[in-house]
């Protein structure tokens, strides 16, 4: 390779207190390319970015190494010269656009800072350039936006502003730290396309930091896999996805849920990432590696540099076989059981109050006429982007929030009509698992107490000793040690906490569990464990799941039926094969195409313009028509429900 690298990182090691968070990192980024740093949480990807910018937290320091940008070693620069580099040659965008902009300064003021500092502009020139930048990142009406504050923009728009701010100094390299993780798939597709286009226009190089294999496959030219502060493998991304060399990389790929893997358990990585306050005597992945030999535990594997710019840190790289394409396992078609839960015409409206006496002035129609049908022992997935009302549907079914209209038939009884006292027996039947396992366990209660609480409150197992036995049995059922009973939630990892939450839901022997994004806060390998557990419990106990998710690959793996939701309404409903293979609604098609995929076979990404409208003022007729590529004047009428098969219907006038 003859081209000179733009950024060359050599032997970079960083400490955070006593933790060696980065150990001997070597990689380079060439002009104009996208280089991805791939890794799960805690592997040191963000620390790498902060080390390059020399913006480590107060207890962090770079122990050794060189970081050459355009031939200059950044680690040797005095601080004032480094400030010229930050934003000027090396800009960064962050994961959380919501909190990464200063809330009390206008967008114009925040953009002006960079323009003044790095481009030496002043006065009128600043606002002209700022307008150009906002235009370049696709923000409509940029002149007006300059005077606005960050809270007046949606998440996707804020990330565009962050990109505009990063571009203001005309950097050579943009570090993007999980730039789309906090965004919805259709917005993610917009932002990734914007980055690609900016790269084409300006020759910008991007260092993409992410945990999302799909995003890497779609955007990166080359990549490095980071594990426990060390690079395990580098290479061009195409070659990597065809044949990952390191066992860890293989495991990551195999643990991704996929419709092809339905019916079979996902590959998982046992154990946890090792603590970084130790001196390693062997391979860092060896304790969790299924292929590990004696030598892996005793010697630190050397770096093997191979042809085609590939490299790997493993003794056994030559013996790793190429990835076997997954053969679709024919799932036992389970008897479509009787209906357990039937929801009809569910509406949840939140009043908007205003004026002197706070009278109701309007309503946020979070859920506006939803029909669902869940059969015994099956999984129905409710899919949609954030703000579409899917969580509200779940809470309404459990009667955790007041219902405006509709019926919820559970086992022949309409839950919507029951008074609180009459509802109590049904609390045992329907349970819930929440998205964030860190926030959904009371930190002051022992794990055992949390799990036993339902048994006690509903008077199911009054005897304390019997209750304890039951809790221990539940802990074992979800794959935790009985000793977990006496411990507090903070002692567990995210995946373990989600297991505790599952045990808590199982405690009262429910028939239906509402899973509200149960894996979206977890790493891929941990997600696989939880999905396997949920699948096994369903098979063993005949549970029914109402699975709320924005992640279509998880849904495709787990669910039998799918309902696609948009702005309080269901647009399409059908068996999972029907939805995945023959999606009817333009929104479903766009949503499916926007999911980043590793092995994209055919279709183009359908990019939706704009964002989800406010449910306080939904568009007339079909809610989707302002963003719909197929919209016509007849979409202003309420869309008809068109039946495509016994199990598949779509609400769209174009499919008549």
């Amino acid at each position, binding site marked *: 390779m003859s081209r000179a690298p733009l950024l060359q990182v050599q032997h970079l090691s960083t400490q955070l207190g006593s933790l060696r968070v980065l150990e001997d990192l070597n990689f380079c980024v060439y002009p104009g390319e996208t280089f991805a740093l791939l890794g799960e949480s805690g592997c040191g990807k963000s620390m790498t970015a902060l080390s390059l910018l020399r913006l480590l937290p107060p207890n962090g320091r770079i122990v050794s190494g060189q970081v050459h940008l355009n031939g200059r070693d950044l680690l040797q620069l005095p601080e004032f010269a480094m400030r010229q580099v930050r934003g000027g040659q090396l800009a960064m965008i962050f994961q959380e656009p919501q909190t990464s902009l200063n809330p009390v*300064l206008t967008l114009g003021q925040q953009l002006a800072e960079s323009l003044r500092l790095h481009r030496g502009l002043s006065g009128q020139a600043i606002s002209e350039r700022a307008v150009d930048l906002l235009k370049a990142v696709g923000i409509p009406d940029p002149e007006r936006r300059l005077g606005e504050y960050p809270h007046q923009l949606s998440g996707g728009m804020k990330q565009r502003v962050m990109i505009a701010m990063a571009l203001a100094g005309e950097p050579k390299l943009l570090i993007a730290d999980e730039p789309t993780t906090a965004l919805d798939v259709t917005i993610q597709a917009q932002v990734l396309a914007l980055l690609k286009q900016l790269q084409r226009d300006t020759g910008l190089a991007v260092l993409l930091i992410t945990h999302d294999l799909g995003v890497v496959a779609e955007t990166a030219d080359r990549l490095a896999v980071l594990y426990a502060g060390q690079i395990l493998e580098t290479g061009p991304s195409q070659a990597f996805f065809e044949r990952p060399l390191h066992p860890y990389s293989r495991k990551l790929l195999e643990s991704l849920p996929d419709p092809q893997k339905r019916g079979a358990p996902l590959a998982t990585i046992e154990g946890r990432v090792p603590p970084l306050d130790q001196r390693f005597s062997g391979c860092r992945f060896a304790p969790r590696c299924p292929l590990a030999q004696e030598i892996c535990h005793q010697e630190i594997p050397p770096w093997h540099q191979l042809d085609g710019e590939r490299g790997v840190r493993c003794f056994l790289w030559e013996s790793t076989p190429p990835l076997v394409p997954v053969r679709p396992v024919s799932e036992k078609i389970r008897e479509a059981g009787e209906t357990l839960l039937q929801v009809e015409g569910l509406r949840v409206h939140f009043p908007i109050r205003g004026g*002197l006496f706070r009278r109701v002035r309007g309503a946020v129609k979070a859920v506006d006429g939803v029909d669902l049908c869940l059969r015994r022992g099956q999984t129905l997935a409710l899919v949609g982007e954030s703000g579409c009302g899917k969580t509200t549907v779940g809470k309404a079914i459990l009667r955790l929030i007041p219902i405006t209209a509709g019926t919820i038939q559970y086992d022949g009884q309409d839950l919507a009509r029951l008074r609180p006292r009459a509802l109590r027996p049904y609390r045992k039947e329907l349970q819930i698992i929440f998205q964030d396992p860190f926030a959904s366990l009371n930190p002051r209660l022992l794990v055992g107490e949390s799990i036993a609480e339902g048994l006690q409150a509903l008077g199911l197992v009054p005897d304390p000793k019997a209750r304890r036995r039951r809790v221990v049995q539940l802990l074992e059922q979800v794959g935790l040690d009985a000793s977990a009973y006496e411990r507090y939630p903070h002692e567990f990892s995210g995946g373990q906490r989600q297991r505790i939450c599952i045990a808590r839901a199982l405690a009262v022997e429910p028939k239906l569990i509402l899973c509200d994004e149960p894996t979206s806060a977890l790493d891929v390998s941990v997600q696989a464990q939880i999905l396997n557990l949920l699948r096994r419990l369903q098979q063993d106990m005949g549970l029914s799941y109402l699975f709320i998710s924005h992640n279509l690959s998880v849904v495709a793996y787990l669910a039998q039926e799918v309902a696609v939701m948009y702005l309080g309404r269901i647009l399409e409903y059908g068996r999972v094969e029907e939805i995945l293979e023959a999606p009817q609604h333009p929104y479903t098609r766009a949503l499916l195409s926007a999911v980043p995929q590793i092995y994209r076979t055919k279709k183009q990404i359908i990019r939706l313009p704009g964002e989800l409208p406010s449910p306080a003022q939904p568009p007339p007729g079909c809610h989707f028509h302002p963003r719909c590529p197929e919209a016509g004047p007849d979409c202003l009428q309420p869309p008809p429900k068109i039946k495509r098969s016994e199990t598949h219907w779509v609400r769209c006038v174009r499919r008549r």
Partner: protein
Amino acid sequence: MSAYLLRRFLYAFPILLGVNCLTFALFFLVNSPDDMARMQLGQKRVTPEAIEQWKRERGYDKPLFYNGEASGWGRFTETIFFEKSLRLFLFDFGSSDAGRDIGYDIAQRMWPSLAIAVPVLLVGLLVNLSFALFLVLFRGTYIDLGGVVLLVALLSISSLFYIIGGQYLLGKLLRLAPISGYDTGLHAWKFLVLPVIVGVLSGIGSGTRLYRTFFLEEAAKDYVRTARAKGLSERLVLFRHILGNALIPILTGVVVVLPLLFLGSLLTESFFGIPGLGSYTLDAINNQDFAIVRAMVFLGSVLYILGLVLTDLSYVLVDPRVRLH
């Protein structure tokens, strides 16, 4: 916004009525007018006639809530509750049990109170902010650590010690300022120096520590990282980004006490002999003059409610995210 203000104004009425009922119950039901008269007249020559006359002179001879002898609205208005409590709503404070016009006294004594409280607040804010910014600039160093130790020490000392210590050191030993007293008009300034210094000093410990926490909290936020990643200097990051956001809780904390400055300080004013509203209240309590105490409690409640409304308004001014409906 105007709807919000009007609603808050309407809410104030039931609150103040409640405050009035409570103070009324405390002062008239627990402690009957007869008891008041006996206390005021002293123990020696208390005859039933003297008590009756004392009550008649001050209007305490009427029924509490309902006057059966009067006619029409008079049945409700010619009562102690109406005359002594409900009139407060018109800021008609009546006369004190010693016979002085309370409204006039308050208007007179308000100014000395303000003359101390306003400089203490402004100078204190300036000192605390600068000190906190200084510590934040050196955060994580021994300067920061030493500063926090000093603040905790300052915080742990009783405010009485500051007063007496200040009077002894500056007044008695160094003879820089008079120990106590007050003068009219601009001549009062030399009597104000010592109380203001003492007031500022005794507030440094708690104020600076609080502001330092606000600054550190903001310094850990994501947008500060963004600002640094832009290449801004530490000075710009501190003054433009961190200060701008940390000023929101600081300013609103100041606004809430603004109206209460009128009431002065009980301790400082009595120790330094300042004829303000603080010492007025304290004297009234000592003299069992319940008319004054009642008036001051009511005034305090009104000013407190005003302070809360002003706080909400100040949020709208300094924080672009807040809108009142």
